[in-house]
């Protein structure tokens, strides 16, 4: 079901009515599974397309049961391996392209997110972080939750279970309901208008870049490249965070507290900070289930106190390389992984060395406004350049590398820092002048409702205007 369709909004209102009109004891055991099933069925044309998903979920559930029953390393590793093998096979990764894949079409939406949930449950059951036995209903509700099915956020099973047990015990206040609707409409605004505009411009600059003649000056080429990268990054942000706003507010209305996935990422002063603000639940997942065990492993293997910070550098590279590679099934995402890994580990190394040798000055520099502005611009510029892997295929990327060489990328990077710092400076100036006024107006009952309904009107108007050109949720493909 497309989230930007009339069908979805009919589903939304029906779901609210059915959910609240049904007796409390049936909401989780009957109504919620039925809503999930209905939602998933809208993605398939016939039931056979669901079979791979059912097999994947079945393997996950059996694996969890095995670990619960035997509670040993063999059961855990076997279950984890089976889940990973099925996942890699269903996702048709390029590195296993020699395998005979299923030729018929099947549902692959949300597979990555189901994998994260199942692996998390498996590890937590094995480590006894989940004490109680996982029932089939809880498992299916958690893995196929229609709110998070398509692209997260990645909730922990323990958090979900807490909400499941306390569902319906507290009625939402008028303010909470209004805030939820308000967030939903802001989310629609981001997805329908802002992401569409940014997508249009990134494609526009990208096509200019492709049309560029050999004689064109390198500065013009760099400008086209960095603007295409900027707009691509903004498009990803508005699209994904807008979707999160819709999902989280929908969940809130139904009584679920879904975790936040974004916290103003483009205000991050470093790449390390960026990943604690961008796709937070994914970063957290990787931190809990990959980064920490990896650092622990290194510390156990080579227990040297002085080396511990450098283990972090290595672990960042490893974890973010994996995370980058996860973003797609083609080879270009390995380069994306290298880019992310390099960014994180260099940033961590810089941080470690500065704290070691210039501790006092470093603290002062960090706290200075200008360095913050430059750090933010540097982070955004670096990340935007990295996202070029998401819109270029390997062939185009290699072409670009040959055309640009190191100096071209450096020039684009510097130009990006300069442009983004300028843009930030303008935004901050605007906030400084008008910020207080807007905040006080938002508290006014009539103004907030008038503004919100105007926003909704504009969203509907733009939806008609951009007919057929409104982008789908970009993370749906994962």
């Amino acid at each position, binding site marked *: 079901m497309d989230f930007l369709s009339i069908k979805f909004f009919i589903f939304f209102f029906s779901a*609210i009515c059915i959910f609240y009109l049904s007796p409390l004891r049936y909401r989780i055991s009957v109504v919620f599974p039925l809503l999930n099933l209905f939602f998933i069925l809208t993605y398939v044309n016939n039931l056979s397309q669901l079979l791979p998903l059912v097999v994947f979920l079945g393997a996950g559930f059996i694996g969890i049961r095995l670990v619960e029953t035997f509670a040993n390393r063999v059961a855990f590793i076997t279950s984890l391996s089976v889940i990973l093998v099925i996942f890699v096979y269903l996702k048709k990764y390029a590195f296993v392209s020699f395998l005979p894949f299923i030729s018929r079409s099947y549902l692959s939406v949300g597979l990555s997110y189901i994998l994260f949930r199942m692996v998390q449950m498996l590890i937590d059951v094995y480590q006894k972080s989940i004490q109680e036995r996982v029932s089939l209903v809880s498992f299916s509700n958690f893995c196929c939750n229609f709110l998070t099915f398509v692209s997260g956020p990645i909730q922990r099973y323990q958090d979900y279970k807490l909400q499941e047990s306390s569902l319906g015990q507290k009625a939402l206040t008028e303010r909470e309901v209004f805030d939820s609707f308000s967030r939903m409409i802001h989310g629609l605004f981001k997805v329908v208008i802002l992401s569409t505009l940014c997508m249009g411009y990134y494609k526009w600059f990208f096509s200019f870049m492709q049309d560029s003649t050999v004689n064109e000056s390198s500065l013009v080429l760099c400008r086209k490249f960095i603007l295409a990268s900027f707009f691509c990054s903004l498009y990803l942000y508005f699209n994904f965070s807008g979707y999160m706003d819709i999902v989280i507010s929908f969940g809130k209305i139904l009584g679920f507290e879904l975790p936040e996935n974004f916290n103003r990422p483009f205000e991050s002063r470093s790449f390390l900070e960026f990943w604690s603000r961008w796709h937070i639940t994914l970063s957290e997942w990787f931190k809990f289930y990959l980064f920490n065990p990896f650092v622990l492993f290194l510390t156990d293997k080579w227990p040297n106190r002085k080396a511990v910070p450098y283990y972090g550098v290595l672990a960042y590279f490893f974890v973010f390389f994996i995370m980058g590679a996860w973003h797609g099934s083609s080879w270009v995402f390995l380069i994306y992984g290298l880019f992310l890994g390099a960014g994180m580990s260099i940033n961590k190394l810089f941080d470690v060395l500065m704290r070691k040798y210039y501790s006092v000055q470093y603290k002062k520099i960090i706290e200075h406004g200008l360095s913050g502005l430059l750090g933010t611009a540097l982070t955004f510029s670096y990340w935007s350049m990295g996202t070029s892997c998401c819109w270029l295929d390997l062939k185009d990327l290699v072409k670009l590398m040959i055309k640009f060489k190191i100096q071209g990328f450096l020039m684009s990077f510097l130009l990006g820092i300069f442009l983004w710092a300028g843009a930030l400076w303008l935004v901050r100036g605007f906030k400084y002048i008008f910020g207080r006024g807007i905040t006080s107006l938002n508290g006014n009952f009539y103004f907030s409702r008038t503004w919100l309904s105007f926003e909704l009107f504009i969203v509907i108007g733009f939806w008609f205007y951009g007919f057929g050109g409104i982008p789908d949720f970009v993370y749906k493909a994962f």
Partner: protein
Amino acid sequence: MKNIFKQMAVILLFFCLWYVFFLFLTYHFYPENTVVDNSRLHERNNRLVLGKLKSNIFLNDAQNILLGFWVTKHESKRIIIIGGSNALRINPAVMQKALPDFTINLAAVRNSNITQLRDIVYVVRKSSPGSLKGTIFIIGVCFATFFNDNASGGHVLYENKNLTFLEAEGLRYGLYKLRDNKLELVLAPRMMPLAVHLLRPFLLCDLVFYDLKSYYDNSFASLHAVQKKPQDLKGEEFKQASLAEWRDSLGNIRDFAEDGIMSDFVTLCKEIEKSGASVVIVDLPSAPWMQNESEYYKKYTLKRLLYLDEDRIIPRLRYVNLATLLPPITDGDFVDSVHPTKEEGEMWSKAIAGFVLSQRKFLGF
């Protein structure tokens, strides 16, 4: 649950207030249609013109037809000009002077082929209660009218489907649907005028968004040199670029103007004639260099002898090669390969009006 519905109702109420406000604005700035006229709409591309088109709320030539005909007063004697972008250069005001008893509707749409012409005729027929007696269809054709639906000419990609411009616009507001590659109404014809009126606030949004986007596009374009279009080139370079563009847009020469397409055109003319209307097929000239160098034009000249001659035997149908009514045409009469200059467009309009008057006995008025 009470709180949820209460908040929903409050937001909906405020939304309705905005809706009514914008509806009022549209009637203030854009009074109701009296005539469908695409000539100025065609000019709005690439420049900021908000507020300059006070008589028309529709964003583009396709919308003007698909929605505009439903809210246009149906006069008993009217001329409806259909065709492609070169037919858009016909000046309705010039024709009106020569034919004062008629209302002139310029309903041509850029990149029209037979499928689009059929869709336009469908809209006109559905929006006109009763017979089309008293209506004269002037179909402006040229070689570029006869391309296959699979060619890329004027198609837009929507959800991985290749749609004609008219089809995409028809689907935009959900008032039309596609069945067997033809546009069909979703609502009953009597409901359509109301639906178009209700859409007016969003049509206004379209205009504002379009103008804002044009403004920003132009701002960005000034930052980056856009690749040159054929019309920016000169001499032989221009000709070769134009020919290449036509090849790209009209598709494979084997599929172009093939018998099926030509027969479809004849069938369409017969259908119009059956509905009570008269038909004038006007063969619009192309630039002389295009006539000499385009393989598409050469194929078309052969085919028109076979098919457009056949049309002449249908009652209330006339065919005219416009070039025979005009002084000898030169390359200078065209801004590119097929589109006439403004002055030449006015000459075309006078010549067509003169031809219609001369054929009044056959056309039934």
